[in-house]
């Protein structure tokens, strides 16, 4: 049980947090033939683009309504209209997904209303789905933006009542933003092994898994199609991965009465046992041999890794769902979480296995990390790790100094196994070698000794 605190500083130093619109845009990227748009000034889009490109090393479609001071004050209707017409003409997407920014929220632009007007004024735009979500920069963080965007998809795209009867072998997956494209690929494979067909919303494994295609596209290539999104109301069940996805799953249930389960995490032994149990229950199929084997491999890996992870003091800086997942998994191997820093509120924070969870920045993390054995955070943790001489295990986003950030897999039995090996190897690579000084006597003993010696001399003098 952790106490949740918010940093009281006026200045954030070395931010851990990224903005809501960026999280929403990332969710948009998981839709097929989509053009994500930030409704704001062009700089926000430019920064977001650079960040995502550096992380995924992929082309990122992301547009802006290019607001300036005057258009902001007059209201953003015209720019939205122009943006939509321009994008439709140039990129011909199936879907234009729009998130607001701090600028347009401060002005109070009614994007939903604007979109209504645009649809009326330009009937030809009907061939393009329009979705919008409100994501001011000065509220929440990346993970909140992602969840809001997915909820917006559920509200706008899911067909009710379903076009046909429930399909007993079809299930919905609402993944949190802490799952990589690689994780989603793994999860899809697991689900399909039970004879089920998953619809993942949004599915960044289709668009950001780093594949070569034969054509050039100005929009996303791969991801959830509109048809798939429509069909989600006919699924037998919804799996929400991460607490952040609970509101989305609730919205989906409300709209289409598809029941749901929230799986807070998919890294670790118990959470994957829970996943298997759930899939068995939904499909009526027993656990395939492949996963029985993988489970026993994980057990072996846990035994190998606990020697190195057990007793270690680990400090983590990550968004709530990722923080929870990492902290639980490490604690289950005997490590102690001596510092936990996160970006935004979440009901999950109280259950993080640490004394305290701080909503703060990397300066806070660096302070907590003094004398610890391992830091886990995104690539910006590198300077702190160097200053403190503490190894860094990179997690979350952005990871700009590693290849294959989108293909890392840490879920499932197999992904957990590989994750434990990676962390264990870090400790093996930074062993605490003993030196002649390791067991040097402390100052207190030495002073005690010195005082005793003086006393003895004095005593000796007295005898004289």
């Amino acid at each position: 049980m952790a106490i949740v605190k918010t940093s009281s500083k006026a200045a954030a130093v070395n931010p851990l947090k990224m903005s809501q619109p960026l999280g929403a845009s990332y969710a948009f990227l998981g839709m097929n033939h989509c053009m994500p748009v930030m409704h704001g000034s062009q700089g926000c889009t430019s920064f977001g683009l650079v960040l995502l490109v550096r992380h995924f090393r992929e082309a990122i479609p992301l547009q802006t309504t290019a607001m300036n001071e005057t258009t902001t004050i007059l209201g953003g209707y015209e720019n939205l209209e122009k943006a939509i017409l321009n994008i439709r003409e140039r990129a011909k997407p199936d879907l234009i997904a729009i998130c607001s920014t701090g600028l347009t929220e401060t002005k109070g632009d009614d994007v939903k209303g604007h979109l209504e007007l645009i649809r009326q004024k330009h009937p030809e735009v009907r061939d393009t789905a329009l979705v919008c979500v409100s994501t001011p920069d000065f509220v929440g963080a990346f993970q909140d933006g992602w969840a809001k965007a997915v909820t917006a998809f559920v509200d706008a795209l899911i067909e009710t009542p379903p076009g046909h009867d429930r399909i007993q072998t079809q299930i919905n997956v609402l993944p949190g933003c802490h799952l990589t494209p690689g994780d989603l690929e793994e999860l899809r494979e697991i689900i399909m092994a039970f004879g089920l067909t998953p619809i993942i919303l949004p599915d960044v494994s289709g668009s950001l898994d780093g594949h070569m295609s034969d054509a050039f596209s100005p929009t996303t290539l791969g991801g959830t199609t509109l048809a798939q999104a429509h069909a989600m109301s006919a699924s037998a069940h919804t799996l929400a991965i991460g607490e952040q996805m609970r509101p989305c799953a609730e919205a989906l249930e409300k709209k289409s009465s598809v029941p749901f389960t929230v799986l807070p995490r998919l890294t670790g032994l118990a959470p994957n046992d829970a996943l298997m149990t759930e899939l068995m229950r939904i499909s009526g199929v027993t656990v395939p041999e492949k996963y029985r084997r993988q489970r026993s491999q994980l057990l072996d890996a846990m035994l190998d890794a606990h020697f190195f992870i057990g007793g270690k003091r680990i400090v983590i800086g990550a968004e709530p769902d990722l923080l929870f997942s990492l902290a639980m998994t490490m604690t289950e191997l005997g490590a102690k979480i001596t510092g936990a820093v996160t970006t935004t509120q979440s009901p999950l924070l109280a259950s993080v296995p640490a004394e305290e969870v701080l909503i703060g920045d990397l300066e806070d993390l660096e302070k907590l990390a003094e004398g610890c054995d391992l830091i886990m955070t995104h690539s910006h943790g590198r300077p702190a790790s160097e200053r403190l001489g503490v190894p860094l295990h990179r997690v979350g986003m952005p990871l700009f100094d590693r290849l294959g950030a989108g293909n890392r897999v840490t879920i499932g039995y197999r992904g957990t196994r590989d994750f434990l090996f990676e962390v264990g190897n870090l400790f093996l690579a930074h062993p605490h070698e003993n030196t002649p000084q390791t067991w040097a006597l402390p100052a207190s003993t030495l002073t005690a000794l010195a005082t005793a010696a003086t006393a003895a001399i004095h005593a000796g003098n007295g005898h004289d």
Partner: protein
Amino acid sequence: MSTLTSKIQVVFEEPACGKNLSKSEKERKKGCTKQLAPGAAAGGCAFDGAKIALQPITDVAHLVHGPIACEGNSWDNRHALSSGSATYRTGFTTDINELDVVYGGEKRLYKAVKEIIEKYNPPAVFVYQTCVTALIGDDIEAVCKAAAKKFGKPVIPVNSPGFAGVKNLGNKLGGEALLDYVIGTQEPEYTTPYDINIIGEYNLSGELWQVKPLLDAMGVRVLACLSGDAKYREVAYSHRARAAMMVCSKAMINIARKMEERYQIPYFEGSFYGIGDMSDSLREIARLLVMRGAPDDILARTEKLIAAEEARAWASIEPYKARLKGKKVLLITGGVKSWSVVAALQEAGMEIVGTSVKKSTKEDKARIKEIMGDEAHMLDDMRPREMYQMLKDARADIMLSGGRSQFVALKAKMPWLDINQERHHAYAGYAGMVKLIEEIDKTISNPVWEQVRSKAPWE
């Protein structure tokens, strides 16, 4: 906001800008910022531009006043290098919340400056304005003034909110902040007849260090670089330089011109890219210094240095010439002046099949035309789809561009080299040009291309 508006007018009316002079009165009033096309725009905001221009000052704290988007999504994402302090790489932001938006963020800003001075004690704090805080009317000038007085340290307002315009405007507004608050506020320990300023050089990937040894050899001292690898105090006493070189396009022309006006420091516009351009720049530096009274033996010294270094560069390029002869290059640049790179590539025997002139001035275009002959090769605004097709059809062997378009090339399975802001290699001076040729050769001749283009066994 009225101070900002008038500032922008001042910057737009830049008399030394050739592009500006060729415009009508009405066009000029509109400024260099075209109304951006919603849904079809790319590029950074004015805040981004100001940060690019000033963040290379290494020992000060750069504090961004605004919501998390502006700094949280972008900090420490450039490669301006420092030979000393690393303070400039620390991300400071007020990260304002909903309450600040309602009640104003000035108090938080003031407190933030205080915290930073107490914890990090930098020689100065630069405070950057952003869209939301500008919209709600936070007066950063007033807060900076109060904080500077209270804490006895320069606190510099950089009034360049993103929505004021594009990156280029931000470069200039950043420059204005230096002119208004920093330049001329301190004195150097001593001066020499060989003191120069370099303006508009950001030391990306250490490019300044490719040039500095040459200047050292000439006996020239860089009094201040604006702003690559600069210390605050160097910028503050840069008004004592004898001459200045303005690097790279028109990004900081306002600084160069106003320093000439205020402190009689003559400047010239030059480039460190390309062997010929590098030599011209060294000659011009020597000439200007002599004109300002430096002993004229520096001229002969410079010629000797140029002869030796040019010969060395050519000798290093020689082995590549045969391999690169006739290779077709598609050059899409933003920050780096196209024509200087064009000349350099031609020096190595390559053919330029196209270059972007989106951000080039009229003179630039004239110059490119002079060098390349055929205007048809100038591409005003190439869409990614067209670039892709051009590469796919093998009308080019390699694309040199900024990171934004790299995937256009890679997905077309064509070699690509980064020559913009985020690049990791330094391409300035003689050493840099050799490096560029080396990199092009390394990229084009990599065996990976043949493999990725081969068909799968089932195709």
